Each structure stands twice: as structure tokens, then as C-alpha cells.
């Protein structure tokens, strides 16, 4: 946060530095307080508990699966929004952003009406295959996809737009079909935006709580993710919840840093 004294444009205005420093403090102080309050022994105990190991594994697994589904569905949608002026394009973009502003609990209820055992799509699915999403790991993935997909689509669309449509035109004059152009030109050039969208979607899934617990309940081993485990622990024992929270913090930061080094470095 220190401004370079040799900045040729002059001193950095105090009116900007002070709020910026406040913003950093607001984000860091709670996390630091949590770290300071933690008991190392409790953390070690928590790490050894099978409930945490199950929940952590389930969180990483479902978030990763959700991210892959978001990529498979979201990249084509983002491409259509960024490259094709189809009728209703603006309406689709507006609809895509709805889950971003929806309270996650409402998302869970909506998912129930669609994919619950008696839901619009859930009932025929149950009749045809005997499978129902709620209270399963696939239900967790579905809830994650629902809340994360808007972030992934909007982020990738931005990446595709800034990647430069003019290269698509160049590829067309060289005889490339739109599919070839998509694979060999558009996606490679938009890779930083795509990676950012995936990380954003993954992080959103990792923290997802409301839609997941509403749609799937809280069954250890199948639907209990880290946020739901922490919520349940908080009801019973604050210290355990604190220890679990720190593990969650460490895992989140660790994975984001690892992804950043591997994926998000410009160039």
C-alpha cells in the first residue's frame, strides 16, 4: 500500500489512500482475529476428525465437478452471448444473471420445485430412472452449478469479448470453419478469461451453503460440505466451528494461490 515516492505524477491523494486502506482492513481484520483466536490443538483435533475429512473431500469434489459442468455448459453459452447477435440475446443475458442476485435459499427452493422428487422435471426423472437429485452428492453438484454458472458465464463472456473478434475474421478468411476457429483461435486467446471464470465458479461453489442445504439437507458423507459442517458445528460447539473455519480458510487460499500461479499469470 505504500505509494512510490518517485511517482512522476505526484503524491497519491489521501482521499483515495485512506478508504483503500480501510477496505483492506475490513477484509483482513476478521480473518486475522479468527486466526488469533484459534487454538492449535483444536485445529489438529479437527483435522483428524473423519467428519471434517469427509466434508472437505466432498466440498472439493463437488466444487470441481460443478466447475467442469459450468465450463461444459457455460463456455458455449458465453460464446453465443459474445459472438452471435441472436434474437433475445439481451433477455438471455439478463436471465443468466438472475441466480447471482437470488438469495441461495430461494435457489434451493426453486431447485426443489424443478428437480425434487415431485418436481417438474424431478418426477418424470424419478419415474424413468429411479434417480432423484435431492439428498445426493449429484444434488450438491446441481445446486453448485445453479449458483456458480452465472459467474462463470459472465466472466468467460468478458474474456471472449476482450480476446478480439478480429482474429475470428482473420481465421475465416483462411478457410477455418467457426468450430475450428472456436477451438484453435477463440478459446486459446480467451484462456485467461476462461481460467478466471473457472476459478471464480469453483470458489463460489466451495462457499455455497444456502442452496445446498435447502435442496440436499445435511448428510455426512453424501451432502455435508464444509460450509454445512461448520454451520452444524457452530450450533453445538463454537471452538470446533472456529477450527474448521481456519482449515477452510487455509484450503481456499492454498488452492486459489496454486491456481493463480498455474493459470492466471498473464502471458
Amino acid at each position, binding site marked *: 500500500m505504500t505509494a512510490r515516492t518517485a511517482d512522476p505524477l505526484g503524491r497519491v491523494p489521501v482521499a483515495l489512500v485512506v478508504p483503500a486502506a480501510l477496505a483492506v482492513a475490513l477484509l483482513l481484520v476478521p480473518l486475522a482475529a479468527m486466526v488469533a483466536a484459534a487454538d492449535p490443538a483444536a485445529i489438529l483435533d479437527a483435522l483428524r476428525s473423519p467428519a471434517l475429512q469427509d466434508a472437505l473431500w466432498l466440498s472439493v469434489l463437488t466444487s470441481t465437478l460443478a466447475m467442469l459442468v459450468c465450463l461444459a455448459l457455460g463456455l458455449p453459452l458465453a460464446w453465443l452471448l459474445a459472438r452471435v447477435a441472436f434474437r433475445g440475446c439481451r433477455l438471455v443475458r439478463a436471465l443468466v444473471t438472475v441466480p447471482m442476485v437470488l438469495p441461495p435459499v430461494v435457489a434451493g427452493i426453486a431447485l426443489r420445485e424443478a428437480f425434487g422428487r415431485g418436481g417438474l422435471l424431478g418426477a418424470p426423472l424419478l419415474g424413468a430412472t429411479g434417480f432423484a437429485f435431492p439428498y445426493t452428492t449429484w444434488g450438491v453438484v446441481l445446486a453448485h452449478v445453479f449458483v456458480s454458472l452465472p459467474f462463470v458465464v459472465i466472466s468467460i463472456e468478458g474474456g471472449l469479448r476482450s480476446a478480439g473478434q*478480429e*482474429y475470428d*475474421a*482473420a*481465421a*475465416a*478468411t*483462411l*478457410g*477455418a*470453419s467457426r468450430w*475450428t476457429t472456436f477451438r*484453435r*483461435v477463440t478459446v*486459446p*486467446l480467451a484462456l485467461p478469461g476462461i481460467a478466471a471464470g473457472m476459478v471464480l465458479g469453483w470458489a463460489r461453489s466451495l462457499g455455497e451453503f444456502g442452496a445446498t442445504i435447502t435442496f440436499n439437507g445435511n448428510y455426512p458423507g453424501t451432502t455435508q460440505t464444509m460450509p454445512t459442517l461448520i454451520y452444524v458445528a457452530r450450533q453445538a460447539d463454537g471452538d470446533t466451528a472456529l477450527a474448521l473455519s481456519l482449515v477452510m480458510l487455509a484450503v481456499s487460499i492454498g488452492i486459489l494461490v496454486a491456481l493463480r500461479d498455474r493459470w492466471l499469470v498473464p502471458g
Partner: protein
Amino acid sequence: MSGTPGELAVRVAVPGRLDLAFDVPRGAVIAVVGPNGAGKSTLVQALAGLQPATGSALIDGTDLLALPPQRRRVGLVFQDRRLFPHLSARENVAFGPRSRGVPRAEARAAAQDWLDRLGVGDLAERRPGELSGGQAQRVAIARALACEPELLLLDEPFVGLDVGVAAALRIELAQHLADFGGTTFLVTHDALDALTLADHVLVLDHGRLEQAGPPAEVAARPLTEHAARMVGLNVIRERTRIRAFPPSAVSVSLHQPEGSARHRWQGVVRSAAPHGDAIRLRIDLPGGPQTGPQTGRPAVGERSLIADVTPSATRDLALSPGRPVWAAVKETAITSYDVPAGAG
């Protein structure tokens, strides 16, 4: 891909921007000149299929405009080159053949061959970001030629290059265009390009064809002010008659000239810049040109003149921008010719 005889017949329109009709011999190099906004790039984009246009462009009975861009066999060298930044020079050149179904190894070998012919074979592994402007332009030309196009479209290929680099590339390009069997459209602002590289010149203005012909003819008898400026001439148009004169024939004074100068104009110096041994003035004619009382007929379309004066005259008369001056030219220095019927 040999330059078989025949014509390329183009009738192309883009509402509000372009409305052209011309026939050019196949295999020719056609320079497309005109001021900014004349429609040069629009023509190129329409031929490449990147700009929706109505009309037709017939080669051997095939209408180019009816085909999607991928199937037109047109090689376009963009003004900004547009090499794919994530691919090496070789992969950039191999992209076209690969997209048309040539196996990978074969496409790479062909790409290397094209890079060698353009003199940048040793840079095949480099990304576009690691190439100089001239090198990148050579790769871009190789990329367009590697598709073995019927039409090669070069959109201001020397823009943004150092003078020396552009000169070297111009000489080489002449050789490559001679080897290339297809038809080339070369968009340029430079009379030198039109005169040295082209067999045929199209002069565009306001989206319309103002003049078409061999370069020497267009240079000797330009019909538009822009074309005249390109070859360093002034033109005055009086209805169907054009009067052209070189800037060296214009005499500049601070007071209304007397004597035998038949044509004289009052104006204001807009710019002054060295041009060879002389100083080239651009003189705005706010009221338009005034021909002598002998004719008394106002000419149309001209707004400025160029005049070459000596550096000492520039100093003595303080000919800096904003200075009101008189310009005059003797009748004997003027070449007159008719505007051909249908042109303009």
C-alpha cells in the same frame, strides 16, 4: 493457379458506403487508391466476405459474393496484420492449409516453404510478439499466400513500417506478385506503390469509382484531387475539363500578382514542409478558386493547392501557416484534358 486470361467482373454495393462496378483482367495487380473513407477497406472486406455486400464478383462464372468467406479462396493481409498471437509464425502460416484439410506435417512443411520464400524462414518458431513490423508483415503475406488464393487482398501493407523496411519489402513484393498467378488488390496511399507494383489503378472517392486505368495514365491525367496529390499535381476541374499543373509552376506572392499569370487565387497557407530542395506549401482557398476575368467561370470541387517555393522565398515572405497569400500559375504550365464520359 496460372494467370489464365479472363476477367474479374465486380459489381458490389454496401449501402451508404460503397457502390462500384469494374472489370479487371485476371492475374493483374490492381492498386486501389483514394482518400480516407473512400471505401477502399470496405471493398477489400466485401471481397473477403467480412462485410455484407450485394452484387457479384464473377471469376470463371463463379460468384465470389455468393460464397461464405471460408470458401472464397481469398487471401487477406490486414492493415493491422492480425497474426494469431498465440501461434508461432509457422503455425500462423500453416493455419490456412490446416483449416482446408491439409495434414499437419504437410501444412507445416508448406508453411516453412512460404516463410523461406518471404525471407523469414529462420523466424518460424517465433511468436508474432517477438517479430518486428517488417518481419510480421512478411509472415502475414506468407500466411495469405499459403492458402493459394484466387484473390490476394493487401490492405495498406506498408503502413507503419520504417521507410527502409517498406522499400525493401516493396521490391520483394513485386517479385512475389509476379510469381503469384491470381489477382491482387493492393490498397495504398502511396503513388509509388501504384506506379511500381500495379498494372491497373482504381481511384475511389465517396464509395464510388472516380477513375480506372493504367498507372501511367492515372498519374499523367488524374481526375480527382486526391489522385493528383498522390502524384504531386494540382488539378482544377472546370465542368468536363481538367487542368493539371505541378506545384513547381505555382508562384506565391503576398500581393495580387500582375502580368501574364492567367490563373490566380487568394488563399491562406495551411502548412509548409520540406520537399526535396524546396518547401512545399499547402494553400487553402477559402472562397474556392477564382479563374481570371477572361473566363469568369467558377470551377468546382477544389479547396486547396500545393506550391513548391524556395527556402529563401519562404523566409523572405514569412510563409508560415495562417499567412494570407496569392498563388498564380501561367497558362503554359497547365495541361488540360477532358473528363471521360461516364467518369466522375
